[in-house]
C-alpha cells in the first residue's frame, strides 16, 4: 500500500533550470514515529521552498509494506529517495539539516545559492 500523503504537479518554473518535469521523491518511514513525522514535515517545507509545484512525494511505511524495503535498498529510516531526476539519490535522517538535504538533492548546487534561502549561512 502506497500512502500518498501529498501530491503536487504544477508546471511552475523553479530555480533549478536544468530540471525538467517532475521531481519524484519517496520517503521511507517505519510507522508513525516522531522521527518520521519530523522528516515528513522537513521534506514538505524544503520542497515547498525550492521545488514548489514540481515535486511528488510518496511516503512508504515499511511497517505496512516491508517487502518494499528491498527495491530501493532501504536500510536506514527515515530515507528519502530521489527517484527522478536521475541519478537516484538517497538521503537518510530526519532531514533536519536543510543544507545537506539541498546538497543531497542537488537543489542547492545548481540554483539555491543565489536565492538567499534562510538556511544557508
Amino acid at each position, binding site marked *: 500500500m502506497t500512502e500518498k500523503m501529498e501530491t503536487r504537479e504544477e508546471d511552475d518554473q523553479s530555480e533549478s533550470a536544468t530540471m525538467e518535469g517532475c521531481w519524484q521523491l519517496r520517503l521511507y518511514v517505519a510507522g508513525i514515529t516522531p522521527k518520521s513525522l519530523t522528516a515528513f514535515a522537513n521534506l514538505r517545507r524544503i520542497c515547498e521552498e525550492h521545488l514548489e509545484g514540481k515535486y511528488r512525494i510518496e511516503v512508504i511505511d515499511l511497517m505496512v509494506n516491508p517487502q518494499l524495503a528491498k527495491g530501493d535498498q532501504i536500510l*536506514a*529510516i527515515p530515507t528519502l529517495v530521489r527517484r527522478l531526476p536521475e541519478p537516484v539519490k538517497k538521503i537518510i535522517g530526519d532531514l*533536519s539539516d536543510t543544507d545537506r538535504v539541498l546538497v543531497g538533492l542537488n537543489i542547492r548546487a545548481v540554483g539555491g545559492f543565489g536565492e538567499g534561502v534562510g538556511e544557508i549561512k
Partner: protein
Amino acid sequence: MAETTTSEIPALEILQKCPSGIKGLDEITSGGLPLGRPTLVCGGTGCGKTLLAMEFLVRGTTEYDEPGVFMSFEEKSEELTKNFASLGFDLNELVAREKLLLDYVHIERSEIEETGEYDLEGLFIRMGHAIDSIGAKRVAIDTIETLFSGFSNEVTLRSELRRLFRFLKGKGVTAVITGEQGERTLTRFGLEEYVADCVIFLSHQVANQIATRRLRIVKYRGSAHGTNEYPFLLDEQGFSVMPISSIGLDHPASVDRVSTGIPRLDTMLEGKGYYRGSSILVTGSAGTGKSSIAAHFVDAACRRGERCLYFAFEESRNQIIRNMRSIGLDLGQWVDQGVLEFRNSRPTLYGLEMHLVVMHRAIEEFRPAIVVIDPISNLLSAASEMEVRSMLSRLIDYLKMEEITAFCTALTVGGAAGERTEEGMSSLMDSWILLQSLEGAGERNRSLYILKSRGMQHSNQVREFCLTDNGAKLRDVYVGSGGVLAGAGRMAQEAREKAEALERSQEIECKQRDLERKKALVEARIAALRIGFQSEEDELERAISRGKLQSEVVAQDNLDMGRARDADAMPPPEGNTSTNGKGGGR
C-alpha cells in the same frame, strides 16, 4: 527449535546448540553454534568468512531442514550463486525450493547523504520480512563492516549494532555475522565481539610461503569449547575444520601383533613384532635404512593380504619400488595386486593441514591396515615444529582410532642427534627404533636398536643392520674394549675368534694326548712292578713251602727218635714205630 544436541539435562535448561553441519566445527564447539543467538565470525580478507556463513545455511537446509536467509552486503546473489557452485552448492535450487533466501543489500556511501537522525529500522524490517517469508531458522549477514561503512554516525552505528544483535535474538534465529578483522582488535568496531554470544576467529597466515588457515573459538557464552587454533580447509567439499582434531585419548588398544617383516627384529620385540594399531617411529641419519625397514614391514603386511598406504614425501613411487628391489623386495607386485598404494607428494606442495586432510581422505578411501609416512621429518619444511607435532598427533590419534598401524620414519641430522627427534613427536610413538651409523676402521656401518616399545619386553641389544640382496638382516655386534664392532671390524673379529678357537682346540687335543701318554707310561710301570712282584712272590712261596717241608721232616725225625728211646706220652703212630729207630737214639 527442532535440532538440539545438548538436551541431556532438560531440567537445568542449559544452552541449546544448533549444529552447523560444518565438518569438525560441531566437535570443537561441542554441538554447534548457540541456538537462537548470533555468532560473530571475524577475520581478515579471504579467510573464508563468507564460505563459513554460507555453508552454515546450506548445511542447515540440506541436513537439518532449517531454511536460511543470507543477507549479503558485498556480493550480489548471482555472484554468490556462481561462487558457491564451484563448491557443489546449488544455491539456485535451494532458493527455488524456498529453503534459502539470498538478499543482496546494496550500499554505496557516495549515494547516501546523512541529514539528521536516523536508525536502521529499514534493515531490520527487511531482514524480518525475509526471515518470515520462508520461516528461516538461520541467518547469515555478510559483512557487518560493509553494512556500516555506508553510515558515518558512529554513535548511531554502535547503538544499531547492539540493536541488530538484539533483533536477531528476538527473532529466535541462529545467526552468523561476519566481520572484518580490525587493526589491533578482532573487529573493526571493537564492539561486535562483546555483543555476540559466540565469536569465531578465522585467520589465514602465510609462513614460509605456505598459507595455513586457522580457526579459533574466541568466546562461547555458556558453553565449553576447544580453545586452540584449529587448522581448517577450504576445498571443493566446502569448509572443514580438521575433523580429527577432536579425538581424545580413548582409542582402542589391540593385543594383536604384526610382524616387522624382519625375523630377527621380531625376535627383538618378544618374537612377535609390533602391536597392531600402534605407532612406530624409525629414526636415523641419512642412509641408515629407514625406508628399507618400512619396506619390509609393508612387504610382510602385503604378504598377509593387508592393505598398505605409503605416503612418500621424498621419493617417487617408481623410485621406491626400484630401490627396494635392490634388497630383494618386490613391492611392485603388491601395487599391481592393489594391496599397496603410494601417495607421493612434495611437502611444500601445500600446507600441513592440506597434507593432513589429503592423508585423511586417502586413508578413508583406501582403508588400509598399515600407513607408512616416509619421512615425517620432511613435513617440517612445510611448517613449524609445533604444527608438525600437532598435525602428527591428530593423525596418529585418528589412525589409532581406526586401529591402523602407523609407521613413520624420521631423519635425524648428523650422527650425534641420536635420541632427539626434531618434531619432538617421539612421545607420540609407541615403538621407537633407532638406526645409527657406526664409524670406525675406515667404514660406516648401520646399527639398530629399540629405544622403546611400549607394552612389551623388547631387547636391549644393539644389532648390526645389514642390507643384503635378500633383504635386511640383523647381526650381533661385538662389544669389546675397542667399542662396538660391526662390518669389516666384526668380520675381522670373527676371524680372530675363529683362529683363537682353533688354537684352543688344538691345545686341548695336545693336552689330551699328553695325558694319554702319561697314563700309558704309568700303566706300563704298574705292569712291570706287578711282574717283579709276582716273581718275588713265587720265590717266597717256594721258600715257605720248603721251610714247611723241612720242619715236617724234623718233627718226624724227632718222633722216630722218641719212639726209639721208648718215650711215652706220645701216641705211637700206627705202622711207623717199627720202621724208624734212629730218632730215639739222641
